[in-house]
């Protein structure tokens, strides 16, 4: 094996932030080399330097022993480096061929030769066992297919070193398996793959070697056979972490939320975003909702919190039918909501923490009378929440936008839990957070459950749902595929349901 890529002493400094500091990386030809690290460890920055989007502040990049310098992505591409970004860089209104040809400059030909390009794509797809129709519109493809288009796009442009940035975040377990097969067939054909991830099991499965990054620095490069998942976790976080969680066993108590035949027509009314949803959440129970993003989870939460008007059905919580109430009425009757996107709907970023803390309840008499806020009460309340939930901030006057993602999420959780709800709807409560913050938030959620609150937990992370939930419902295209207990199911079964196979059918054929 020969060294195909070397990064030497790379530093990348953004105004006020050191993203990479003295990073050295050596990659062999034909290997799958993983960059492992928490969010903010500097993996993506390093790869953006490699693919020409950023310029390293100092340091050297060598390709096959020769030093190179990139001033744009085109330079990196010309030398054979292709990156598949975490958020796909595709244009949904264009076809696969058109997407592959954007920015391509072969010769000085003015005319677009779609036909030749389509043939080329077809051949590439065949060679690496991917099925792709070059003339399909990208907008009509599934997430897994779009990822294949991204890989084909990189190959089409002559990439020999392929960077995959968190490629499995949006895939079902089956699609992940397909992706891994693709990666294996690529490396056996002499391609080199740089794989970015923070999912330990996947790293263990696909990598040859792994380089662990922490706080912008390299902690070390290891052969994958020499490490256990727990070693990797320790290196990544810098301390021991507890992957298990303690919980009280609980007697099943009364039904808190009962959803029956909830249906929501999509805009235009041709299809259904939610189709005949029936669910129950008991007090002291976590009902997890799993599924690939965009299968009706956010519509379900929107209907339950009064943000969207359901077409038909009912959802009873206490004496209320949630589908017929305003959001404020729902929120003031003991429901709390951790929204899916903390920066857009969870917090008002340019406002202080203090203001964000009372966002739900500012109008209540305890916070002031006659339309005036009682500053003393608000101050005490904010200080208490900051202290109780360990929000790392200089003061209650800090703007929400200046906090890290984990601390922003803590602010939301503090606000919602401190309202003493009976039912908590939490959507993607840990999305994009690092292991430490995830651990904290999981603990808080289980604490709430143990104290007798009903929780509806929506998440796309299978591990999270399996770990926290008492029961798991899987959604696919607006329907419930089945409800299972984590102890009585397997990742394979959940994966099949996430891919659209109803539980009854899976168990019948098994």
């Amino acid at each position, binding site marked *: 094996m020969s060294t195909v890529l070397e990064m030497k002493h790379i530093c990348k400094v953004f105004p006020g932030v050191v993203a990479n500091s003295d990073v050295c990386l050596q990659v062999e030809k034909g290997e799958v080399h993983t960059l492992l690290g928490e969010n903010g460890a500097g993996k993506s920055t390093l790869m953006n330097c490699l*693919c*020409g*989007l*950023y310029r390293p502040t100092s340091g050297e990049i060598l390709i096959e022993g020769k030093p190179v310098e990139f001033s*744009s*992505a*085109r*330079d990196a*591409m010309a030398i054979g480096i292709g*990156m598949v*970004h975490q958020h796909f*860089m*595709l*244009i*949904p*209104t*264009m076809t696969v061929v*058109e997407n592959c*040809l*954007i*920015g*391509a*400059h072969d010769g000085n*030909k*003015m*005319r*677009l030769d779609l036909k030749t390009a389509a043939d080329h794509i077809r051949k590439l797809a065949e060679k690496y066992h991917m099925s792709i129709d070059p003339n399909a519109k990208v907008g009509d493809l599934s997430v897994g297919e779009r990822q294949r288009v991204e890989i084909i796009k990189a190959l089409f442009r002559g990439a020999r070193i392929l960077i995959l940035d968190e490629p499995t975040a949006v895939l079902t377990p089956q699609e992940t398996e397909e992706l891994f097969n693709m990666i294996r067939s690529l490396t056996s054909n002499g391609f080199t793959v740089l794989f970015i991830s923070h999912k330990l099991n996947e790293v263990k499965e696909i990598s040859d070697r792994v380089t662990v990054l922490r706080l912008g620095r390299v902690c070390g490069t290891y052969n994958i056979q020499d490490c256990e998942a727990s070693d990797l976790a320790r290196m990544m976080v810098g301390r021991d972490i507890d992957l298990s969680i303690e919980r009280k066993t609980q007697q099943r108590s009364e039904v808190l939320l009962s959803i029956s035949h909830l249906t929501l027509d999509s805009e235009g009314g041709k299809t259904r975003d939610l189709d005949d949803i029936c669910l129950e959440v008991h007090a002291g129970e976590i009902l997890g909702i799993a599924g690939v993003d965009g299968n009706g989870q956010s519509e379900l939460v929107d209907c339950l919190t009064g943000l969207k008007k359901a077409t038909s059905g009912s959802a009873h919580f206490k004496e209320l039918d949630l589908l017929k109430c305003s959001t404020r009425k729902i929120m003031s009757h003991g429901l709390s909501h951790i929204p899916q996107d903390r920066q857009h709907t969870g917090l008002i970023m340019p406002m202080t923490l203090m203001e964000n803390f009372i966002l739900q309840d500012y109008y209540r008499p305890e916070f002031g009378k006659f339309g005036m806020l009682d500053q003393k009460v608000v101050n005490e309340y904010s200080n208490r929440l900051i202290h109780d939930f360990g929000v790392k901030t200089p003061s209650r006057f800090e703007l929400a936008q200046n906090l890290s993602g984990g601390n922003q999420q803590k602010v939301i959780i503090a606000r919602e839990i401190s309202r003493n709800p009976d039912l908590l709807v939490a959507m993607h409560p840990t999305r994009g957070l690092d292991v430490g913050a995830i651990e904290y938030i999981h603990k808080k959620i289980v604490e709430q459950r143990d104290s007798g609150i009903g929780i509806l937990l929506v998440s796309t992370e299978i591990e999270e749902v399996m770990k926290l939930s008492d029961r798991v419902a899987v959604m696919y295209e607006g329907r419930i595929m089945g409800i299972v207990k984590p102890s009585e199911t397997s990742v394979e079964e959940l994966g099949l349901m996430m891919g659209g196979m109803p539980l009854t059918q899976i168990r019948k054929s098994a």
Partner: protein
Amino acid sequence: MEFLSTFAGWTATDIRLATPLLLAGLGLLLMNLAGILNIGAEGTMLIATLMAVVGSYYTGSVWLGMLFAMASGALVGLLFAFLTVTLRANQVVVGAAVNILGSGLSATLFRILFGVSANVPLIDVFENCSIPVLSDIPFFGEAFFRQMPLVYIAFLMVPLTSYYLFHTQSGLNLRAVGENPRAADTLGINVYRTQYLSIIVGSMIIAMGGAFMSTGLTKFFSEEMVSGRGFIALAAVIFGRYKPSGIMLAAIVFMAGTVAGNVLLASSSQIPYQFLTMLPYILTIVVLATFAKSAVSPAELGKAYKRG
């Protein structure tokens, strides 16, 4: 028979009136597809109407006047691009400012250069030129083939623009910038340069439309003579579903309103003339309200792109 020749006459007028609208629409399309929302076409056209007259007056050639107008369009485009692309100012606000600038600048310069007098200087203007054989086709030959040269150029630009946008590498890159500038950036396209070029070239085409108004449709400049065509062109792009052929159709339909108004006016109908002159504008509103929903605009239209 008589009606047919009258109708052919109306068609000829419609085509001529549609020309500035078509040019402005094509110019706007280039920018829109690169993600730039420019509501300043009205102002750009106003400046061009004056510059065309100035150019023609001093050089004695309407074609040089046209070049003058296009140069003024390029300058206005450069200003717009600097403010919206480099400084990332709000595109709608800058567009509104360009309109105010166009209105004020054209009126002021006009009074400085020509003074306030009732005498209209004679300048070189576009003349009809017949295309042999084709213009001899009965009834409609003259409507289509006895027009001013710029009319032919404008309508020829429809297939040319279409070919450029949908069948060349550069056109694909431009559309990619409007749909997803970050993706375009990762693929090595210089987003800023693409937007600058599309704004400058687009503004030059818009300016051609303005020039035709003062040296083709009429024979001299008058204040506010564009009278909303820059805005109707915005509507034409949407009604035309961001396609050159669609914009051509929209321009013809919208201007048919003006022709109909004129015809009714001439026939001394009972309708007050104020209502008749409203026709093209009302038609624009109705058509937009009916069809706007089905037009899909570029995903990143009107949003400034920031690298890194």
